[in-house]
């Protein structure tokens, strides 16, 4: 029966091409939509996930990264003096105006941190180094936004929040999901750029690294006992809260999620229709098989084998197509992510969709109509 399943697939090459196209289209559509969704969620919590911190101390009630609110630096010293804290650093993010060399103005999101601390630093440096930020009024930007920010190379001069500054390095692939790119600067400068009036002894976040021998949860409890008016999250918690906020509380995330679900529905419909049509093409043959004494079980196996072959071949092609699309997205406005878990999920989805679609037609196949097999 394996022979029949395979031969039937390849016998009518046009029909097979149509089937495969349907499956590949559906899978690629789903991959793109879910990849965008995943790219979006990952992007929203990117700075948190790469912070290398164990705990985040935030102003009480701050639910997500982009909402940072300053509080007194005294908390910072309280944290530092807590046993089990190996290291703590002030950290902030806030919006600022970026004036390009040609005078045009863009909005940017400034990240202030302590260069050399290893906490909250930009990653994936391709030019310059994080240490260069120790110089006064220097910034690091991502190469994705070269054009938008009007900078070409290290040494380019711009104005940010009415302060002159110099580009000292570029990262690769640190994306913002808003229209405001991230700009990295040392903590003190970031305050100047974003809110000149704010006192130097305040911070929006405190990033904490726990000592060896104490768990993040344990240290979290300890800090909660000692600090009032702030919330203390593990990095994973704060990341999740931020992603959740952008995903479900704002229209942006819901739009991406809806598109992903629609992609799934359309994809399933296309595959179901494609496989169903391919099965119906051979309905007379299945009737003949049944007349020959094949059991329903035998027919199921032929159908399932055929569906699995379609799924595997469609999946293989879809992966190739998706690979190129994912690669292209790395330079584009929105990243499409396809982790291995998604590749595996797609494989399972492809097989399940194809087999389910084939089984939908099984009623027609197993209820043999003698008139059909005897028709001339």
């Amino acid at each position, binding site marked *: 029966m394996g*022979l*029949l399943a395979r031969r039937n697939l*390849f016998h009518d090459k046009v029909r097979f091409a149509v089937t495969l196209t349907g499956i590949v289209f559906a899978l690629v559509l789903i991959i793109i939509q879910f990849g965008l969704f995943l790219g979006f969620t990952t992007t929203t919590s990117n700075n948190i996930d790469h912070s290398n911190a164990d705990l985040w101390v935030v102003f009480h009630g701050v639910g997500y990264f982009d909402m940072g609110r300053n509080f007194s630096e005294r908390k910072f010293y309280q944290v530092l003096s807590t046993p089990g804290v190996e290291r703590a650093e002030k950290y902030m993010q806030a919006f600022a105006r970026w004036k390009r060399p040609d005078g045009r103005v863009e909005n940017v999101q400034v990240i202030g941190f302590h260069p050399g601390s290893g906490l909250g630093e930009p990653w994936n440096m391709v030019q310059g180094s994080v240490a260069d930020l120790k110089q006064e009024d220097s910034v690091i930007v991502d190469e994705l936004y070269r054009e938008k920010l009007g900078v070409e190379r290290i040494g380019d001069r711009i104005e940010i929040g009415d302060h002159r500054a110099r580009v000292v390095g570029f990262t690769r692939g640190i994306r913002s999901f808003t229209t405001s790119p991230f700009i990295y600067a040392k903590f003190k400068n970031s305050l100047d750029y974003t809110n000149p009036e704010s006192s130097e002894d305040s911070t929006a976040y405190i990033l904490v690294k726990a000592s060896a021998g104490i768990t993040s949860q344990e240290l979290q409890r300890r800090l909660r006992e000692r600090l009032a008016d702030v919330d203390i999250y593990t990095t994973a918690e704060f990341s999740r809260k931020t992603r959740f906020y952008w995903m479900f509380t704002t229209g942006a995330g819901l739009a991406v999620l809806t598109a992903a679900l629609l992609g799934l529905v359309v994809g399933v419909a296309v595959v179901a229709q494609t496989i169903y049509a391919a099965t119906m093409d051979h309905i007379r043959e299945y009737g003949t*098989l049944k*007349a*020959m*004494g*094949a059991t329903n079980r035998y027919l199921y196996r032929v159908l399932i084998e055929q569906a699995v072959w379609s799924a595997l071949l469609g999946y293989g092609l879809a992966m190739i197509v998706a690979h190129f699309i994912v690669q292209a997205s790395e330079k584009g406005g929105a990243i499409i992510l396809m982790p291995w878990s998604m590749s595996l999920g797609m494989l399972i989805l492809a097989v399940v969709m194809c087999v389910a679609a084939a089984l939908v037609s099984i009623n027609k196949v197993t209820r043999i109509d003698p008139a059909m097999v005897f028709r001339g």
Partner: protein
Amino acid sequence: MREINRASAIRAEGLSKIYREGATELRALQEVDLEVRAGELTLLMGPSGSGKTTLLSILGCILRASEGNLEILGEDVSALREKELPRIRREAIGFVFQGFNLFPALTAAENVALALDVRGVRGGDARQQGEELLAEVGLAEKARSFPADLSGGQKQRVAIARALAGNPPILLADEPTAALDWTSGRTVIELLQRLAREQGRAVVMVTHDPRVLSFGDRIIHLEDGRIVREEAGASKAIASLAFLEGLPGQGSIQAVGL
């Protein structure tokens, strides 16, 4: 010897079939009694819509009668559950169709092998039996041809080879020559006749074609779902008439066969 060959392969009693479509009922078969014997080519004739295909489907356990009893090789199949019918078809029955119903994606040999596969015969055994069956119908050299590359007559012979997979005692053919020219049709009928007479199978063939009458051992006429007439086939008629009346056989063919 003769007696064993002529044993009853199919025994049907009071078969009726009612097709229901919504409120309308169609009596396709009414109280059909029939015995099909091994070693004979039984022809089933009748106008279009008289119930020939319906009867053949019931005899072949593809379709269940609304009423009546059916015995296949001594087994009462009207009592069997739906799930057991495929076994009867695999073990007892081979079908030959007007439209051949070969699998276009498979070669002649693979078409036969598929029928063996359905019966659990695989690998080397399947290859050997497949070759033998194609040789039986005179198409050993076409084993690797696809149906599209065969003539109508060749296709039907491949289909007969396939029907012989599993060596079924009963062959049921629905107008197997209707799509063929007379030369090919004749080859097919001679083959079916040989399978009945020389191999002792019970062969039932539905036909419209009066030219094939002389090949049958029995001719059963169906009209409006009833058996209206049964006669002995030409060859037997010749023998019996010659025996009874002492006449030379040749002259009687006209009178009895046509």
